[in-house]
């Protein structure tokens, strides 16, 4: 069994050494030696998050954390978010509750249809951001609320501008998405592969 001596190391080093070892060598069993309580709990927790069964022993002031998992079993629990995914990231920024200019009644219908149809983008749809009049789509009694809630449940990240909600006095009426700020929006724009403005 692979053994790592992480004694004398401060967090997060013991977890990182463990992580690197099981990832590089695709290990299914490992023993990690640590010498403090924080490292013991962190290493144990990490192994559990990767699908290992963990046992711990205390020996002469050190802790031996042993983990084993069945080969080929997909790790349960949380995984680190991959920083560089191949997948394209599309951000849609909605700055109005109508689509286009001219007739608002028509624009409103078009917007409903648009928001129902964007699911065709599949997993590439990465962020949906509502600003200015657009925030009115994310509040109580909005026609698209059920569909937005469904998107959110499926893992789409919906951001709603906090300044705008405050401006319209709608902060407590927001029913979907996370309240956001300009820094988040700008960061998202920078990280996105494509930004679509509506």
């Amino acid at each position, binding site marked *: 069994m692979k053994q790592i001596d992480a004694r004398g190391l401060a967090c*997060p080093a013991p977890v*990182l050494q463990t992580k690197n070892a099981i990832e590089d060598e695709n290990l299914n069993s490992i023993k990690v030696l640590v010498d403090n309580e924080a*490292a013991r*709990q962190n290493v144990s927790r990490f192994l559990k998050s990767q699908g290992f069964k963990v046992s711990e022993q205390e020996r002469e002031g050190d802790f031996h954390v042993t983990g084993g998992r069945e080969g080929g079993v997909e790790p349960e629990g949380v995984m680190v978010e991959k920083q560089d995914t191949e997948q394209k990231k599309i951000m849609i920024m909605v700055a109005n509750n109508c689509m286009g200019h001219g007739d608002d009644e028509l624009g409103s219908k078009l917007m409903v249809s648009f928001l129902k149809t964007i699911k065709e983008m599949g997993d590439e749809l990465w962020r949906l951001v509502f600003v200015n009049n657009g925030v009115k789509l994310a509040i109580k009694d909005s026609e698209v609320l059920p569909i937005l809630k469904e998107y959110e449940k499926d893992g789409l990240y919906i951001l709603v501008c906090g300044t705008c909600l405050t401006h319209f006095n709608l*902060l407590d009426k927001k029913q979907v998405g996370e309240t956001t700020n300009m820094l988040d929006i700008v*960061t998202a724009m920078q990280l996105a592969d494509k930004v679509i403005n509506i």
Partner: protein
Amino acid sequence: MSPGDLDRALCGMEFPTDPNLIVGLDKADDAGVYKVTDDIAIIQTVDFFTPIVDDPYWFGQIAAANALSDVYAMGGVPKTAMNLVAFPIKEMDISVLRKIIQGGLDKMKEAGVVLVGGHSVEDKELKYGLSITGFIHPDRVLTKKDLKVGDCLILTKPLGTGIINTAIKGGLASKEIIKFVTGLMATLNRDAAEIMNDYPVHACTDITGFGLLGHLAEMVVDSNYGIEIWSEKIPVIPKALEYAGMGLVPAGAYKNREFRESMVDFAPSVDRLIQDIFFDPQTSGGLLICVNRESADDLVKSLKKKGINDAAVIGEVLSKPTGRIVVC
């Protein structure tokens, strides 16, 4: 140093007293307060640490925001600052230090504070921080101690910077979350403090190294009241829970738990990971404001109006269990 170690180093020592000393070391508050005239008291505080983000300019800003926070937490207005620098001049380019100091300066400017001096030493490990002096009316000092039964507790920034910083150190945090947390830590508590000063606030502190529960413990220890907090209302940084589940919890969180666990009653529904977030040491964390119940919602509304979107009422002061914190 951990709260337990600090306690061992200082307990039993006798510190000189002075009738004009309003808040001294014995009170273990955010900053010292000394009355100069009947209308003016000075607030003094100092804080420095090793880099927590890779970007030197942002590190400078965060260190300054963190040091200034103690003055805001006392209800005061910061006026002057002194830099403290420890720098490995032989190994590191001087441009790094320039960027750090520029970051600190820009934050001081934002806070309306003037830099009046500083001190630097050569050190193997880079450290930066500031000593801040502020003013306050001697009758308006906010300590950690004057809580009243029935008061509500308001927190102004989400928790989890210690866990996120551990993930950053390990190279496991996404760029997006790094940016978010950096901005959060560099945000001054000035706006929150200014707004709070218009309300009948009884006590205030800022959440830093001891974590939310460590600072709450300081509020209830040796008191005749207890505190109840509501986990679901407490704002947490996105991803912090996930990283905690991966074992990216800083050693400081375990030390905070060890020191204060005996004062806390967790409801069975409060997950261990959530508990760790409540013990997580914060850098430049938010203000924890204790205000009378009638004003609490209005204060939160005012905070949100000013863009402090995470502000929330997270708990209340109860007549019992005395000297304890209940987390449900």
